[in-house]
């Protein structure tokens, strides 16, 4: 540490600013960095949660609309199916992300 004493804190601030500027340009183009790095078990869990969450949200909205509009099973049935579709959409998106993380093709 004796030889490095010439670099005072003031220099450090300047160097930090220079470095920040350098990395800033680098990251400007990055809109979306790495996703969630996960273990296989983590992916299994994530995909199943996405699927079930779609059903829960769709079913919940349908049930609520039924109670509100008094159309008993109709809305629940419709929104349950739509929720399932939304869940699958989420699963496909998550799977694309997984593909990208694992270095495969983007699927597009």
């Amino acid at each position, binding site marked *: 540490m004796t030889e490095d004493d010439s670099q005072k804190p003031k220099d450090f601030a300047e160097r930090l600013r220079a470095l920040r500027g350098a990395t800033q340009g680098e990251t400007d183009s990055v809109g979306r960095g790495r996703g*969630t790095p996960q273990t296989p078990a983590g992916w299994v869990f994530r995909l199943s949660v996405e699927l079930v969450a779609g059903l829960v949200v*769709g079913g919940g909205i349908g049930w609520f609309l039924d109670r509100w509009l008094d159309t008993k099973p109709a809305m629940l049935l419709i929104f349950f199916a739509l929720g399932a579709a939304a869940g699958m959409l989420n699963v496909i998106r998550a799977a694309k992300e997984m593909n990208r993380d694992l270095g495969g093709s983007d699927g597009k």
Partner: protein
Amino acid sequence: MAESHSPLDVFKIDRLVHLCLGGSVDPESGRCASGLDASFTNSSLLMVIVLVGVTAFFLLGMQQRALVPSRWQSMAELSYEFIANMIRENVGPEARRYFPFIFTLFMFILFCNLLGLIPYSFTVTSHIIVTFAMAIVVFIGITIIGFVRHGAHFLKLFVPSGVPVFLLPLMVVIEVLSYLTRPISLSVRLFANMMAGHTMLQVFGGFVVSLGVLGGWAPLAFIVALTGLEFGIAFLQAYVFAILTCIYLNDAVNLHH
């Protein structure tokens, strides 16, 4: 034989200080018969401890402000850099103004998870109402940010590109539903991981007792391994919650899917 414990006893909420807002207390159970039950529970106590712990971690860690950091200061700086980089990589440099919120969220969840691993403590994040409250705050906040930054253009998020016109109404409904699943999947993921881990620890703890001195060593060894795994999960789930918040924020700030 000792009294039998349910493995789910660790998740029980105990009221430490009874507090009933605008209602009457039922004299038999000591609970609120009407009005808002705002009792100070063991869950609230742990949250207060977490807040004090996080504050102390940073205040004491950054006290010296050495150029060559001590181990503690280095830990505080490490966590700062970690979240700052995460936001920069996932959302971009202009999202730095949201750093305090995401950093607070991350440290709160991390400390909740880690302090919950201490024996006889309580895991706040193993209750879905806690994680759901955090997720819904993130969800509503990000939706507001999206509308403030882009106005009505934010609704384009729900219109997928390259879809035939006659399918569009259906797709928009599905996209909106898919957007609405975000708080659910965000909260369920954290809650289920914490709850499953702690239930498993409890169940194997019960095996140690019931198998006795002869057979109890195998589950005990398993508990040790599982505790190590739980430390990893405690960190990973806090990280996942923060990074998913970043990814959702990216949709609202930069508006592309």
